[in-house]
């Protein structure tokens, strides 16, 4: 009697183990997320070289909800959309503004963050707003492929536009007074001003409001629906607030003091 029950139990356990092993044996396809790890505090690396930041945590939580292992692909900003189009990455989570032009090439998820274009100026600049920069002899620095670049090319026809690969190069030019202004987002310009207080000043009021979204290939509407679903539930569960607390608290306080704000 005991022997039979024992045998039955063993068989049961063995069957259970093998079926779950069968399930586990089929690995989930990794979720490859492209971002440029040069945009603190959203996309950056810690001292050991590991990706970290707002977007990294967002990607991690998204991947977990989809049950897929996360792979982060560090790609230069202007290379993100081509990488998405050629299928090298599945998603772009890189604080990318959803513009009409870009939407012609790729799909965007629902918006998850509001930001705006503003100015980092050289100390000697007397400009009071973006309109003051649209003059001959003015040099405006932009980062290649960003909305600042697009704005400068289309709206600042009289100024000379200097296009740089990296944010740091553009900031260097402004701090060395080789360029009059750098068009970028509020958080970065604030931080860059903090680090270069003797050589720069800022106009942090955004002259163009923008929203960020996650980029998805036009061929992948299923993934787009999944991402939108995630964003909705993440917001209601307070996930974005937690990220804001973790990475943007100090800036939030400072901006509130200055009268600006950004929204998650």
């Amino acid at each position, binding site marked *: 009697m005991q022997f039979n029950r024992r045998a039955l139990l063993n068989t049961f356990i063995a069957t259970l183990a093998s079926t779950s092993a069968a399930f586990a044996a089929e690995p989930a396809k990794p979720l490859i997320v492209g971002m440029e790890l040069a945009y603190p505090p959203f996309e950056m690396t810690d001292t050991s070289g590991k990706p970290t930041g707002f977007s990294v945590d967002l990607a991690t939580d998204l991947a977990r909800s989809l049950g897929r292992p996360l792979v982060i692909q560090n790609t230069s900003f202007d290379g993100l959309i*081509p990488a998405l*189009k*050629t299928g090298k990455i599945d998603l772009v989570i890189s604080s990318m503004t959803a513009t009409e*032009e*870009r939407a012609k090439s790729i799909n965007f998820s629902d918006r998850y963050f509001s930001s705006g274009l503003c100015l980092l100026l050289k100390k000697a600049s007397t400009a009071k707003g973006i309109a003051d920069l649209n003059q001959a002899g003015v040099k405006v620095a932009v980062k*290649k*492929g960003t909305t600042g670049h697009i704005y400068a090319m289309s709206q600042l026809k009289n100024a000379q536009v200097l296009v740089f690969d990296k944010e740091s*190069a553009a900031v260097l*030019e402004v701090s060395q007074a080789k360029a009059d202004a750098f068009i970028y987002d509020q958080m970065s310009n604030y931080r860059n001003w903090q680090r270069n207080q003797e050589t720069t000043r800022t106009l942090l009021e955004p002259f163009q409001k923008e929203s960020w979204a996650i980029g998805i290939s036009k061929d992948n509407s299923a993934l787009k629906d999944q991402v939108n679903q995630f964003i909705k539930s993440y917001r209601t569960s307070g996930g974005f607030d937690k990220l804001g607390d973790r990475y943007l608290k100090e800036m939030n306080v400072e901006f509130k003091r200055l009268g600006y704000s950004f929204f998650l």
Partner: protein
Amino acid sequence: MLMQKRGQPVTLAAQLLSWCLVGLLMAAVFSFAFSQLKYGWNWAAIWEYRQKFINGWLVTVAISAAALLLSLLIGLLTALAQRSSVLPLRYLAVLYVEAVRGTPLLVQILIFFYVVASAFGLNNRYVAGALTLSLFAGAYLSEMIRAGIESIRGSQRESARAIGLTQLQTYRYVIYPQVVRQLIPPLTGQFASIIKDSSLLSIIAVGEFTLNAQEVNAFTYSTLESYLPLAVGYLLLTLPISLVSRILERRFHFAT
């Protein structure tokens, strides 16, 4: 038919047939590669930006031409300085050559523009960029020129002396004509390098060919449609140089 028998000249038919075969092979390889890409070609987008390509190409030509001329001058002066009997001059030349040949061009561009040029009040990045390229190529050229001069055997200088040529005349009629002929292959190689290296100037926002193509890519997200014309544009500059070099080499070929 497609083999060249040793010592026999190659017939025109054989040349044409062989080039056709190579062309077909390349076409096959590239068609296969591109057919594997799931890529939506969008040539219309970059056609809109064709002026940017043209402008960038012209800037590249201008900077490369200026750099070539200037680097020739710098190379010549440096080669002479290295053979000079004035010691500080010689050491300065050696220091310059070693420093430039031992560091990457990218680093030189950044240091020159952000440190040296600023110190001297040179703010025009196009001029600074051309200067950096000239100094870079000049160091390599000076070594080539120096090797060329030293390869002229002492016996020729003796002979020149014996027929009563002055130092200057010896350089002008005996040494330099030979050095120039010897230099044609490496010189054209250097020119092609200058043209290609000029693409690095994009790092200081010089609006040359490569940067302009990258900008178009940034606006239109058509990577291949931007970069293929880029490659063709550079080839348009470097191939003729290569061709001229081969022709000149054959014309001036003589045994020493």
